[in-house]
């Protein structure tokens, strides 16, 4: 069927157009994002912005640079949780932190930190292991809006109440409420938890590796990428990590189509915890 008769093909064309605008006009490269999810985000953006079609939105964004912030915020999915998958935090606590404790300075890169829930979770882990003071965490994301809320560290109190159980299941040794101040329905995280965190805008697709990391935590970000892009980013992670460095991805991620994944070996498949092997 030709595009004129098949609405699905027409829409594909519009998505191409939109993606091309973001790339050529603004340098944001979404060309290798999985199409199904990306199309869904773009459809949502069209209705949020009150446009008639994806093509209309593309035209609007092309001519109105002031809109690009909202568009990136809308395409990014800053959905996270404190201590999501407690068993992963337990594995980090029991397997990774003891290994990291042998370094005098520890560098952790958290890629795709969203609104920061995972950064605070990680900082709590490091604090309780007595390692926080010699750790530096780079927390990066493509969404400035998400980074700003991560820095602010204010969350619905309900989120933290829900997380208390996960914190304990993840091996927490205090109570989660030691780490925040709740006021009415908002909770502000203890700012000491980010005293050793650098928040930075970094695009995994287009930006270069910038640190030598002992641990890279990148959960539920690569799920949005095609095989080719997933592979490219895993290659970047291999470049960034020290020999024997750790990589943790989301519990449902599948690395089997990435040649670069062979540079890693699994040390805990359930927690999706890997280690860079051999020399670089």
């Amino acid at each position, binding site marked *: 069927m030709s595009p004129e008769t098949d609405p699905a093909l027409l829409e594909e064309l519009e998505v191409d157009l939109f993606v091309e605008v973001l790339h050529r006009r603004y340098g944001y490269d979404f060309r290798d994002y*999985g199409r199904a999810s990306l199309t*869904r985000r773009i459809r949502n953006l069209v209705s949020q912005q009150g446009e008639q079609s994806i093509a209309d939105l593309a035209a609007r964004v092309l001519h109105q640079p002031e809109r690009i912030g909202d568009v990136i915020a809308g395409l990014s999915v800053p959905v996270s949780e404190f201590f999501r998958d407690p068993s992963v935090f337990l594995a980090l606590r029991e397997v990774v932190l003891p290994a990291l404790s042998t370094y005098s300075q520890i560098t952790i890169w958290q890629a795709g930190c969203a609104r920061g829930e995972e950064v605070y979770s990680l900082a709590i882990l490091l604090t309780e292991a007595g390692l926080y003071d010699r750790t530096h965490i780079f927390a990066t994301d493509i969404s400035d809006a998400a980074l700003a809320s991560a820095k602010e560290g204010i969350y619905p109190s309900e989120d933290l109440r829900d997380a208390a159980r996960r914190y304990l299941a993840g091996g927490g040794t205090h109570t989660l409420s030691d780490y925040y101040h709740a006021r009415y329905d908002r909770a502000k995280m203890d700012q000491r938890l980010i005293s050793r965190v650098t928040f930075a805008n970094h695009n995994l697709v287009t930006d270069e590796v910038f640190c030598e990391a002992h641990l890279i935590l990148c959960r*539920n970000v690569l*799920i949005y990428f095609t095989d080719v892009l997933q592979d490219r980013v895993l290659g970047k992670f291999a470049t960034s990590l020290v020999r024997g460095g750790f990589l943790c991805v989301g519990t*449902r991620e599948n690395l089997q189509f990435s040649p670069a994944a062979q540079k890693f070996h699994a040390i805990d498949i359930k927690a999706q915890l890997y280690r860079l092997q051999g020399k670089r």
Partner: protein
Amino acid sequence: MTAVVIGASAGGPSALQHLLSHLDASFRGPVVVVNHLGPDGPDFLADMLAKTSRLPVETARERIVAQPGVVYVAPSGYHLLLEKGGRFALSMDEKVAFSRPSIDVLFASAATAYGANLAGVVLTGANADGAEGLHLIRRAGGLAFVQDPDEAAIRTMPTAALARAGADYCGSLAHIADRINRLPR
């Protein structure tokens, strides 16, 4: 080859068990299931359904191509989408109407990926998930089957689907299974 997507919520596991047990072992389409309120264990529902289904049942994995004659269940905590060519994708996007996985998200992506070579099925449930997705499936030329609300453990979801999308067939689980068995191969 026609793919089948199925959405269920409250009362879903036993309805799914019933429906799947009536599918022919020779059915060749991929069957993809979203069920809300899945018990916590990661592969619990798939294991439970595998016990009575004549077709093999697995939890869907990202990047895998949905195989003919296999039933896939969405993992809890993620939205499940189908890419063109029948590959699975997972997303962590916001919950939709309090649900992740969302039936609408699966159905909408399947309608885009499979067009007319698709049948959507809405079963028992206490919310309106699946109604919009079923509408999109029909609009793309696919078929819509809805469990008879009078027969459903909870009638809300099938009723909402009928109101929004209508149906090509509305009836008992056994009769829906029969329609599925007769889909073009």
